[in-house]
């Protein structure tokens, strides 16, 4: 019997309906223009790869970030939020600055420091519009909660 894939997928009801809570609050008041339309550019400056896997997990159907209007972009020039994974290796400080220079106003930067006590990495340089700083390896729900705090709409619960 040939399976009809749309029904197969829908019957599984993979997308979860729950409230996503961010571990930290936003440090600055946010603009309203990102409601239901948030484009995120992810840059890895020296993480241990767990965060990369968490971002990939964030793109899975369970979280279904597209229903909130959250998308990952391929270019910093199309981005609203720069998500910085890990603390920067010395060599990556230059590219990080270049990337930040490419973001069009208004934008926010979010940092995730996965190993705060790992030596050999630099502190973050002065980041413009630094909205939130996470530490450790947050789960995708927590990252999504933070993104939703920026992209939150009035209509949906989460």
């Amino acid at each position, binding site marked *: 019997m040939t399976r009809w894939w749309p029904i197969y997928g829908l019957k599984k009801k993979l997308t979860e309906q729950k409230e996503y809570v961010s571990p930290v609050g936003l440090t600055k008041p946010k603009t309203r223009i990102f409601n239901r339309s948030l484009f995120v550019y992810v840059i890895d400056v020296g993480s241990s790869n767990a965060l990369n896997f968490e971002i990939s997990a964030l793109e899975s159907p369970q979280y279904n970030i597209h229903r909130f209007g959250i998308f990952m972009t391929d*270019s910093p020039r199309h981005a609203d939020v720069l998500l910085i994974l890990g603390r920067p290796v010395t060599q990556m400080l*230059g*590219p990080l600055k270049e*990337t930040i220079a*490419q973001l069009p*106003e208004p934008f926010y930067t979010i940092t995730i420091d996965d190993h705060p006590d790992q030596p050999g990495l630099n502190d973050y340089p002065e980041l413009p519009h630094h909205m939130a700083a996470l530490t450790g390896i947050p789960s995708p729900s927590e990252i999504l909660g933070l993104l939703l705090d920026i992209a939150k709409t009035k209509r949906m619960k989460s």
Partner: protein
Amino acid sequence: MKTLFIIALLFFVAGTVSSGKNKTSYIFAFLGSAAAFLMGCFSLTSSAVLWRFELVQNISLSLYVDHLSAVFLIIATISWMALALYSVDYSQLYPKKRLPLGFNLSLLGMMLILTAHDGITLLAGWEIMTIFAFLMMQGTGKYFEHSYRFLAFGELSTISLVIGFAALYVTAGSISFDALHKGSLFVLVLLTLGFVIKMDIVPFHGWMQNIYGEIPDNTAALLSAPVTLMGVYGLVRIMPLLPGSQLWDTILILLGAFSAFWGGLQAAAANKIRLLPAYSTVENNGMILTAIGFYALAKGSGLPALHYLAVFALAASLVLAISHTFSKTLLFLSIGHAKEAYNVHTIDQARGVWSGVGRIPAIGIVISALSFSAFPPLIGYAGEWMILETLFQSYRFPGVTLAFSAALAGILIALAIGLISFAMIKLIGYTALGYDHGRKSRPVPNRLMHLAEISLELLIVLGGIGLPLVIFFIGFPQLLTGLLAIPAPLVLASNQPVFGVISPTFIAIIMVVLMIIPVWIFMKNKKKTRKVKSWNGGLKLEEDEFFTAPAYSQIVEHVLRGFYHTREKKTKSRAGIQVEDILIRPTDFFTRLVQKTGDKVASTLMNGKISAYVAYILVLFITVFIIGMIVK
């Protein structure tokens, strides 16, 4: 008019005589061209016999201007004037006597061609033009052995014309153009072949490959624009006067279309900065040849339904000729300007003319390249639309073969336009508007160069926007009409009742009007802008990381590898793609054959022995004696 002709002649002679002083010589050339231009203007409305001289019984030399000569005179002289102005500045870089000498005499030859009314004058002008153009090729003082190929093809064209006119004399008893209607098919074939060879149609384009990069700038422009225009003039003048042949017309249509396609194909793969426009000449002249062939076919069929179409086809060839002459001259002038400033040979090396050399030559490259790519509302757009539109209407021809051949020609020409757009984008993107990598360009004297470039730029734009004026100028006001909201005569119609129309004037008006509101809004809200470097993965792009011009065309070279015979050469530390213009192989073969035979004959005859020499003289003497006896 006669006085203007003599003034022009005197100026050219003065230019030749003063070729020691390059600047003066070119200024004389400019003045001579201006006089010829005025002569052309006056002859637009009235024709006149300039000179008549009876050589022997039944053979008289005559110079004659009428509306057709006037049109071509005006087109050609504008190109000559621009070249002369350019050469004044250019000669300061290459002050050799040969260049202005050849330039003046070549222009004189061309003027003779355009005013000739019989075979001998035409041939005289033809030869003068060819030989002095050949002389110009040596104008930078270096010796180019490949330039003999140009001379060979030029002489082949002359021979064809000579045989054609000789045959005409045999059948009609005179070689004046008035006697052409008595010509035979043989005359038709040979005369048109002579002109076609001069137009650089494939496979007669084989001389360009090795030599085009080496010759001086004004020679390259001259060989590409005015000289091929002479071939067009010959066809447009002679073909209507000769009795037609459907087969030959169809052959010309297909040959022209294939030549256009081949020119576009090779231009897409060309990486030398001079070779790309050279192949574009092949392409444009192919389109002109198709238009002329179509005109002859439509006129020769005699059907009243095809009458409008015949006129439209002729108009298409003239508009294409105008657009090609102006755009090609401008393109070569701008590229020459850039090439001299940077002193390079390939498109890849001559990048960023806009910032590295100057705005005006960059705009020149952009406008002429856009005109070739049929970008509205420039004049090239009108010309290429017209030829495609004539071929669209090929269904009106009775008989399947004719309609099918015309449709096939349409396919080839459409492909050609696509490929040439691809090639022109390469030129615009790399040479004109590319990143200059901080290359230093040497300062060249450029005031008159700029004047020439600006005038041609304006002509191309105004020619497009003022297309009705151009149609009036070439003498076909019946093609203009009005349609819906656009008043007559702003619309060019390709048939009555209306089949297809364009109106570049209207397009230009709409473009301006539609731009007003966005520009006003933009000016009102001044947004904060920030200039950033281009995004390249977080690091600065090094020069060896930039996309190269050969890489841009590599995809076409790979997909059409059958046509190009694309070969990859790869070692551990070097790699590259090689393409080949396979239609040059016959030319190469013949060159090698001639060289080998020549060497063989020379080594057998002139082997240094006195006895061989004496025997050779004796044999010749006896042969001539015998021939003389037979003829007597």
